[in-house]
């Protein structure tokens, strides 16, 4: 189900190579052990397709095309996207700006229904928005005229959650993102990180099958970012809904994603899919993550094909 015909099949091996761990003690050993102890099929809960158990949150993009008309000319933004996200999987999408990452999320969430090919959630074609699909935008988009509590409760407006239970559910989700005590605050009274966490609470409160995250942490400072990443991972582990996150931070993509989709721009295409064979919760210091980061960065900065040898020569090169 997950193995679509991608242009570069070599990616399947990326997570598996043990070479990189040689020479690094401690962390390297542990990372390797974890990786081997948790083969792919177990790391990601994948219901048997043959079984009659209902799928929850399987997202399929097949032959997806999207173009915008700019100055009278159709300009392709996304071309031939084939991607299946398994139920409960966390998929990160990285790529240079202009590769259509955000457009892809807008299509999946249903804010734009003009596209070629198919997007299906659990087999059903996506044509409009649905409470099954939630999204966290890059800017928090809380309504400035409502308190934090009202903003989160707004998401439940058209759900069949009984009115009497709503306040409790809202409080629960506000607590989940660590904002208890700020229920009555207006968005302008919250810091950027707090507002973004509130936006995450608002998206989670409807318990969508699929949660889309459009560079949700892009505007945060480095420290807040790490903090919210950890919370995001914790929430995902608790809720286990399918998540698709667009980011330009490769480290973030690798830390959170079961798989990392590398896209190339003009028009946006899937360039490579990287399996991150580490169980969650992860250790940021894992050498595997660092090696994958180097590889993906090399890919993104346009090193010619056949260059990965580079990475073997300079395995210690870690920072940007």
């Amino acid at each position, binding site marked *: 189900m997950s193995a679509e015909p991608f242009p570069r099949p070599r990616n399947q091996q990326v997570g598996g190579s043990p070479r990189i761990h040689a020479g690094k003690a401690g962390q390297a050993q542990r990372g390797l052990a974890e990786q081997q102890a948790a083969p792919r099929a177990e790391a990601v809960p994948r219901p048997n397709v043959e079984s009659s158990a209902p799928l929850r949150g399987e997202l399929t993009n097949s032959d997806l095309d999207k173009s915008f008309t700019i100055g009278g000319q159709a300009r392709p933004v996304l071309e031939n996207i084939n991607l299946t996200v398994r139920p409960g999987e966390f998929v990160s999408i990285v790529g240079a700006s202009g590769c259509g990452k955000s457009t892809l999320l807008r299509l999946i*969430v249903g804010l734009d229904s003009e596209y070629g090919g198919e997007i299906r959630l659990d087999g059903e074609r996506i044509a409009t928005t649905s*409470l099954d699909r939630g999204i966290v935008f890059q800017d928090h988009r809380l309504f400035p005229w*409502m308190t934090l509590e009202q903003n989160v409760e*707004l998401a439940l407006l*058209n759900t069949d959650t009984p009115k009497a239970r709503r306040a409790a559910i809202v409080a629960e989700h506000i607590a989940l993102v660590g904002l208890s005590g700020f229920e009555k605050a*207006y968005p*302008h009274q919250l810091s950027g990180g707090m507002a973004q966490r509130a936006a995450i609470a608002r998206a989670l409160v409807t318990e969508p099958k699929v949660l889309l995250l459009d560079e949700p942490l892009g505007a945060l400072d480095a420290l807040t970012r790490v903090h919210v990443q950890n919370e995001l991972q914790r929430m995902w582990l608790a809720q286990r809904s399918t998540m698709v996150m667009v980011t330009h931070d490769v480290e973030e993509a690798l830390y959170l994603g079961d798989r990392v989709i590398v896209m190339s721009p003009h028009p946006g295409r899937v360039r490579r899919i990287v399996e991150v064979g580490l169980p969650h919760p992860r250790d940021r210091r894992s050498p595997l993550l660092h090696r994958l980061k180097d590889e993906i960065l090399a890919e993104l900065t346009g090193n010619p094909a056949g260059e990965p040898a580079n990475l073997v020569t300079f395995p210690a090169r870690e920072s940007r």
Partner: protein
Amino acid sequence: MNALLSRRAPRLALGLIAPALLLAGWQWLATSGGASAVALAPLGSVAAAFVELVGNGTIFGDIVATLTRAFTGFAIGAGLGVATGTATAVWPLLNRVIAPLLNALRQVPMIGWLPLIGLWFGTGEGSELIVVCLGAFFPAMLNTHAGIANVEQRYLDVGEVFRFTTGQRFRRILLPAAMPLILTGLTQALAFAWIGTLASELLMGAGGGLGVTLQTAQVQQRLDVILVTVAITAILGFAINQIIARVRREVLRWQPASI
């Protein structure tokens, strides 16, 4: 300096300096003899006129008549203005049909309508009210339209993601997002209604009111009565402004405080 301005008592005191100087200068000019004494009645005679007007009760009748006219006209005119502005913002087709006409009509100043209204409806109280309504209508309509038509798409996206109905979209996104501009429109509408009330009373002279008293006093050359009435008009206008500013702060308390 800012500390001084942030406290209530000093703020009030500072605000009273200019009116006090004005009154002092006035009294000095009025009692110094010469040409200016004819133009300005001394404060004592103005106070006496005030006592007289209060004593025979006419001033209260005038205040009530003027306030009633201003607020009735405001309610009708601004109400229609907000409704029209909302409709044109929500339905672009309707906007296309009526916006050019309304934009041409609003170029005619409020007072410019008086001759036409006078011919059509006479110079009675009804005509005065129509002038007030017209004055209030346009600022309310224009600001409401601008407010609702320019609500950011990113907020509407959120409504779409949560499957808002048309009614929910209007009540929970369009209206609150446009509220700052709608209130600006209402503030302007009230100011125009106030001007329209005084102007139409002065020019039509029907049904009593501060404007009617001003006109009568002019004919009778009662400088003291004119000054009392002008002062009362100023104080009432000021009070109305204070009230609407407070309402605005209350309704928009979700906005950052500064600016």
